[in-house]
C-alpha cells in the first residue's frame, strides 16, 4: 500500500519539476545574496581620521541593523579608489553593502550619488520585505560622500587660514 502511494507520489513530483523548472517552492535568498554573504567583498575598516576617508554610518531602527561604509578618495581626481564596509544585520543588508562597496570603486563621487537602492535590490533580487536593506546601502553611500566633503571643507578652511599666518 505504502509502496503504491510512494510510486504515485514520485511521478507527480517529477511532473512538477519538469513542467515548472524555474518554480521556487520555498522562498530563499537569491544566489547573489548567498554569494555576498559567504564571500563578502571589502569587509574591513579604514582610519576614520584619515582626511582621504569618508565614513557613512547608518542604521535601520525597525530591525536593529547598523551599516558602516567607508570610501577612500583620491584628492586630485575625486575618484573613489577603495571602499570597505562593516554591517551588522540580515543577509540582505550585508549583501547590499557589499555590492555598494563594489560599485563605488573607481567612480567619481558625483557618480556614486546617483546609485539607487532599486538598482541594488534588482541586482540581488531582493523581495519587497527586504527593500529597506538596499535603501540603507544607498543612504550609507551618500553619508560617506557627505562625510568626506565636510572633512575636505574643514581641512580646506584650515589650510586657507595657515598661509595668512605665515605671511603675517
Amino acid at each position, binding site marked *: 500500500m505504502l509502496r503504491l502511494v510512494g510510486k504515485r507520489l514520485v511521478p507527480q513530483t517529477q511532473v512538477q519539476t519538469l513542467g515548472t523548472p524555474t518554480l521556487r517552492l520555498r522562498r530563499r535568498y537569491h544566489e547573489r545574496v548567498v554569494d555576498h554573504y559567504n564571500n563578502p567583498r571589502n569587509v574591513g575598516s579604514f582610519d576614520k581620521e584619515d582626511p582621504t576617508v569618508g565614513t557613512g*554610518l*547608518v*542604521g535601520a531602527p*525597525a*530591525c*536593529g541593523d547598523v551599516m558602516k561604509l567607508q570610501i577612500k578618495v583620491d584628492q586630485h581626481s575625486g575618484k573613489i579608489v577603495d571602499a570597505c564596509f*562593516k554591517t551588522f544585520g540580515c543577509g540582505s543588508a550585508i549583501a547590499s553593502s557589499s555590492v555598494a562597496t563594489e560599485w563605488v570603486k573607481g567612480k567619481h563621487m558625483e557618480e556614486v550619488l546617483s546609485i539607487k537602492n532599486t538598482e541594488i535590490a534588482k541586482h540581488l533580487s531582493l523581495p519587497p520585505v527586504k527593500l529597506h536593506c538596499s*535603501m540603507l546601502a544607498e543612504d550609507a553611500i551618500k553619508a560617506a560622500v557627505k562625510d568626506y566633503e565636510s572633512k575636505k571643507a574643514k581641512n580646506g578652511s584650515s589650510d586657507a587660514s595657515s598661509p595668512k599666518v605665515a605671511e603675517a
Partner: protein
Amino acid sequence: MWNRRKHLLLSSLSLLRHISSTPLLRLHPLKPSPLLSPSNSFLPPIDSQLRNNLLDLPRCGFPRNLSSSNSCSSCWNCGAVGPTSGAFLACGSCGAVQPVDSSVDYFQIFGMKKMYEIEEGDLEGIYKDWQKKLHPDLVHSKSEKEKGFAAEQSARVIDAYRTLKNPLSRALYLLKLEQIHVDEEKTVSDPDLLMEMMEMREAVEEAKDTQSLYEIQSKVKKKLDSWSNSFKEALNKQDFDSAVNCTQRMKYYERALEEITKKL
C-alpha cells in the same frame, strides 16, 4: 412550541448583531427563515455589496474605541449575555467559543490595564486558562463554525500573550493603540547612537570567552532596563517622539542580546 420559536428568534437576532465582526459567518440579511431552522452547516454565501451593507448596519450603538465593548454581546449559541467587563471569548453558560471581536485589545483579553507596567508573571496563568476554553483541539466534536472561531480566538490569544510578555513588543503595541505610526523604512544617522551600537556589536563579535560575553550581556541588559523606564515615563507624559526613540534604542539592545545568546 412557541417558547422554542421565541428562543430561536432571540438567538437569531443576536446572531445578526455579530455578523459585522464575523467574516467567517455568511448570511443573507433579508431572509431570516434559514436562521429559524437550526443547523450547524455553512450558510449560503452573500455577494460583496450585501456584505458591505451588513457592515454598515448599526452595531448596538457603541463606538469602536470604547474600552469595554461587551454591553450588548451575547452568545450566538445560547443567547446568554456576555460579561460586562473583560473579554467575551467563550460563553460562561454554554462554553461556546465566540467569534473574534477585533475591537477587544490584548490588554482586555488578559484583564489588565492598558499600560506598560504589567504583572508579567500573571500572563502565563491567564493564557493557559484561556487555552483550556479556546484551543481548537477541544472543539473537534463541535460545528465547523465553532471550530473556525476556536482557531481564530486561540491564535489571537497566543499573539496577545507573546506581544504582552516581551517588553519591547508591548511598548510597540501600546504605541500602535495610541495610533502612533512608526515609519519602518526610515534610516537613522544619529552618529552617537550608531557608534555605540557598532562598538557594542563589535565587542560581542570579538568576545573571546563566555565570561566577557556575560559582562557585555549584563551591561546591555542594564541599558535596556534604563531605556525601558524612559519609555514608560515618555508614554505617561504622552511624549510620543521620545517614546518612539526609546523603542528604537531598545530594539538595538535586544538585537545585541540575541547575538550574545547565540554565541553563548
